[in-house]
């Protein structure tokens, strides 16, 4: 009875403490750049009305979703092909290593040349930044399929599409998810900066607008909202991951108990 209660207290104590400190430390602030937390919080509902959520947050999220999904599909598909053939892998490796090493944000000006400044550009930027971690992790995962498992499948006549679906992709799924997780944080970064660069709506655009108009409390609410969004997306991701990779976490836990 006491343990869960203690755990709850421990989990809440620090956040509450931090918020309290922020609240009181900023309470009498006259610094325009650091408004009192009270002001930020009271501004929040005024700024992020339903209308604004629909007009700015939703488009951002849709672009993120589209780019991320495209990157996931493309990355897994290409990664499976490259990972399955030793020679293809050897041919592609140096090029992939280079392309992965390019910091994704510099793709924004490049892709703007091709796709202008519309939604296509933003989706393309997000997709082209997110694809590398997915692709490279898929290659590693596909390559590392256990030979015994692979021969067992062959012995039972599990080949072709069934092998891909039941053996290769499942076996690579822990690595694929590692890639997807890295891609998610890159995707959020690219979503924001592609909108900061050139846009007429979206979260990144709005926050920069606030900053340029010196609507400082508004800007702070935007930062809070972005943080909240990042947190929520990571929670959703974890839920999905726990469902899909339940077997993997169990396997790891059991092999840790008896090495």
């Amino acid at each position, binding site marked *: 009875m006491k343990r869960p209660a203690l755990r709850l207290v421990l989990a809440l104590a620090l956040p509450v403490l931090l918020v309290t400190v922020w609240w009181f430390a900023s309470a009498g602030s006259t610094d325009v750049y650091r408004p009192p937390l009270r002001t930020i919080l009271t501004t929040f509902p005024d700024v992020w009305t339903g209308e604004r959520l629909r007009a700015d947050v939703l488009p951002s999220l849709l672009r993120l979703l589209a780019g991320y999904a495209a990157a996931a599909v493309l990355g897994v598909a290409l990664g499976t092909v490259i990972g399955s053939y030793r020679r293809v892998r050897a041919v592609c490796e140096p090029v992939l290593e280079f392309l992965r090493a390019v910091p994704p944000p510099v793709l924004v000006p490049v892709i703007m040349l091709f796709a202008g400044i519309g939604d296509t550009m933003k989706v393309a930027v997000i997709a082209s930044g997110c694809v590398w971690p997915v692709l490279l992790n898929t290659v590693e995962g596909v390559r590392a399929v*256990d030979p015994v*498992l692979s*021969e*067992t499948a062959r012995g*039972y006549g599990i080949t072709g599409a069934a092998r891909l679906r039941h*053996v290769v992709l499942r*076996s690579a799924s822990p690595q694929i998810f590692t890639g997807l997780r890295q891609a998610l944080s890159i995707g959020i970064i690219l979503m924001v900066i592609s909108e900061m660069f050139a846009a007429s709506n979206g979260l990144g655009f709005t926050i920069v607008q606030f900053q340029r108009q010196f609507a400082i409390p508004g800007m702070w609410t935007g930062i809070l909202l972005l943080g909240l969004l990042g947190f929520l997306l990571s929670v959703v991701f974890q839920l999905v991951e726990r469902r899909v990779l339940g*077997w993997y976490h*169990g396997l790891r836990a*059991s092999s840790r108990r008896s090495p």
Partner: protein
Amino acid sequence: MLDVRGLRKVYEGAGRRVEAVRDLTFTVGAGELVCLVGPSGCGKTTLLKCVAGLLAPTAGEILLGGRPVTGPPPGMAVVFQEYGRSLFPWMRVGENVELPLKQQRMPKARRRELVADALRSVGLTDAAGAYPWQLSGGMQQRVAIARALAYEPDVLLMDEPFAAVDAQTRADLEDLVRGLWRARGITVLFVTHDIDEAVYLGERVLVLSASPTVVREQLSIDLPSERDQLHTRVAPRFAELRTQVYAQVQAAKRGAAVPAADVRTPTPPAT
């Protein structure tokens, strides 16, 4: 049922050749349980993989029911030593057993029946919903055996299946395999390095030489077909056969001490 004729397997590596199997000829009759035993590193696994159609032989041929084996043939199931790596960890026990049947496009009702029956015969009816890694090693190997049974193979190949389980579990599993063999009339080719196990299980024991492998000796095991751990293993005839096989394996090992020049390579293919 299973004919191995003049099987030869040479691995061609970077600037070196390793002759794992030189010339193997033997036959396994329908419904027979044959054990292959030999010194460690004698190419047993290579042989088994060739028979299973997982490796292409360099020369010679393998006939299953009169038809040459060129790839994994239907009607043949393999149980590997590494149970932990041959079961799909992302599938529950029942799904592991069912997957090969699904691949054969078998109707669902029939699949269910076969899975339930196979799990029952290995004593794992209750474990169908568990993941393999939640089970002990011995139970995992039972799942692998159940998967092979549900596949309804004509020939069951077992590659040192009990080498990685503890002694008591091993005795249980040996009795299980022998029981299943008698009940189902499957042809079983059982590879082991354990002489007692070979004599206890087999109707016939083939002793292999050290690599490059040839068949050194064939022994009929004329023990009663009703065998049990307690009595069979102390029977005088068991001791005699065991001694005979042991002597052959020892001789095979000594033979390995003076290998031909092309055999001494940094990493000879093991077993």
